[in-house]
């Protein structure tokens, strides 16, 4: 599903955030991306839905080569990927319902389907009762859960989550992990950058450790590592 080959990313300010990454992720896998702060996890992830373009190297998602894809095709790529952003990226002038519905509106779903699916997914993250509130009226963790709801509402084949439990208490974190487990078991590929050692060590999956823009470790059924 995802192939990266010799991917190299240098930001305009000179920082090299991906320094020759080669990786192959199969359909249906569940992958943790771990590593210290500033290691390049978010950059690694952002290149998959083309928020960032690699400076060199090939990235092939679902058969599309992101290095060669036309700008017009990018929305089509992004609709196949659900993204939980590290900074949530909720639309401040839309309420919770509209924020989640937006991901379905762009694929021109019928209003009936939209309503049904949005309410379902809001229920799943436990925020159905806050559908009419605006992002500024939510706590940090609630905003994060809206971002999660939006990423899964259009049932994408690939979910990319950047520290989806960073602002959540352990209980809620586990509920979210259960949701991810569930959709993963239905065949969705999940890539999740995380700092949550407990989750990584308990719910065993493939672990990719990024350090200084390079893949330092890539283990199926790995653990978090980095013991103090």
């Amino acid at each position, binding site marked *: 599903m995802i192939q990266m080959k010799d991917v190299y990313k240098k930001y305009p300010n000179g920082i090299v955030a991906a320094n020759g990454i080669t990786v192959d992720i199969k359909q249906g896998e569940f992958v943790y991306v771990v590593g210290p702060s500033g290691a390049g996890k978010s950059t690694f992830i952002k290149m998959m839905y083309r928020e960032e373009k690699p400076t060199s190297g090939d990235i092939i998602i679902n058969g599309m080569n992101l290095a060669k894809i036309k700008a017009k095709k990018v*929305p089509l790529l992004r609709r196949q990927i659900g993204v939980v952003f590290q900074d949530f990226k909720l639309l401040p002038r839309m309420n919770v319902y509209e924020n989640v519905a937006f991901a379905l509106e*762009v694929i021109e779903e019928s209003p009936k389907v939209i309503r049904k699916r949005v309410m379902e997914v809001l229920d799943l993250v436990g925020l159905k009762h806050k559908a009419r509130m605006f992002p500024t009226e939510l706590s940090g963790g609630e905003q994060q859960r809206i971002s999660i709801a939006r990423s899964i509402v259009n049932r994408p084949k690939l979910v990319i989550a950047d520290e989806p439990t960073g602002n959540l208490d352990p209980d809620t974190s586990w509920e979210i992990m259960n949701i991810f487990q569930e959709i993963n078991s239905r065949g969705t590929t999940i890539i999740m950058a995380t700092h949550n050692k407990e989750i990584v060590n308990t719910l065993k999956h493939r672990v990719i450790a990024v350090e200084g823009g390079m893949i330092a470790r890539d283990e199926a059924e790995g653990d978090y590592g980095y013991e103090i």
Partner: protein
Amino acid sequence: MKFRTMGRHVKESFRSIGRNGWMTFASVSAVTVTLLLVGVFVAIMMNLNKLADDLENNVEVKVYAELIADEEQLATLEEEISTTLGVQEVVYSSKEQELVKLAETMGQEFQLYEQDNPLFNTFYVKAATPKETLAVAARIAKLDSVERVEDGRAQVQKLFSVLDVSRNIGLVLILGLLFTAMFLISNTIRITIVARRRDIEIMKLVGATNWFIRIPFIFEGMWLGIMGAILPITLVSIAYYNLFNLFNVELASTGIYSLLTPMPFLLQINALLLAMGIVIGVWGSFMSVRKFLKV
């Protein structure tokens, strides 16, 4: 794009108008103030132009009949003048009438010269189009029984060139004003959209196509333009209507000058204001969003 999506875009544009409260207000009031300025100046300029036209249309050729011409010859001459190419109107004034006029301006003493009237029987001729005046004068000069034709060549040409210059200046000012208005309105709209650049970026990251993002903004620009045009249209109409009623009677009494009648004129100017509002609103939104779609 499915049809219902268009409905969604319209709804979205209304919602956005409501939720961007302060920004909407800022844009609408910029449109309002600018269009009001445009409306007032266009109304004034077009009326000045009308007055200039009236003035120009009032330029006459003075035809002096030969002193020896008798009644019959004068009638023939009048007939010939009025059938001359380019003549619109001929008014006859006998030398007695001329003397009365002269006395009116120069003093009653001139009435004393009634018995020994040194003046001519005169025809006042108006050309169909002001610019033809000189040509008409030349044609008339060739007719029988004409002593002399006074086309006021110097004055006429001077008047025309003055009017042409001022009309051109007026046009340049109006165009400058329109351009300025366009710039200011689209500038304002652009800044409000820049303030929402993050929204646009997020939408793109969630998989929206450029048109999906653009269309609600374009509708929004249209509503902004329309809302901003309401007040100028109302105020200009009311003000012009009242000023017209106040001044036109007095002006019309001169027989030469008159203001543009409200009916077609207000329709034209209001159409201009509304069109400007909409076009700039739509165009301003379109151009501003464009910048941020490259995510």
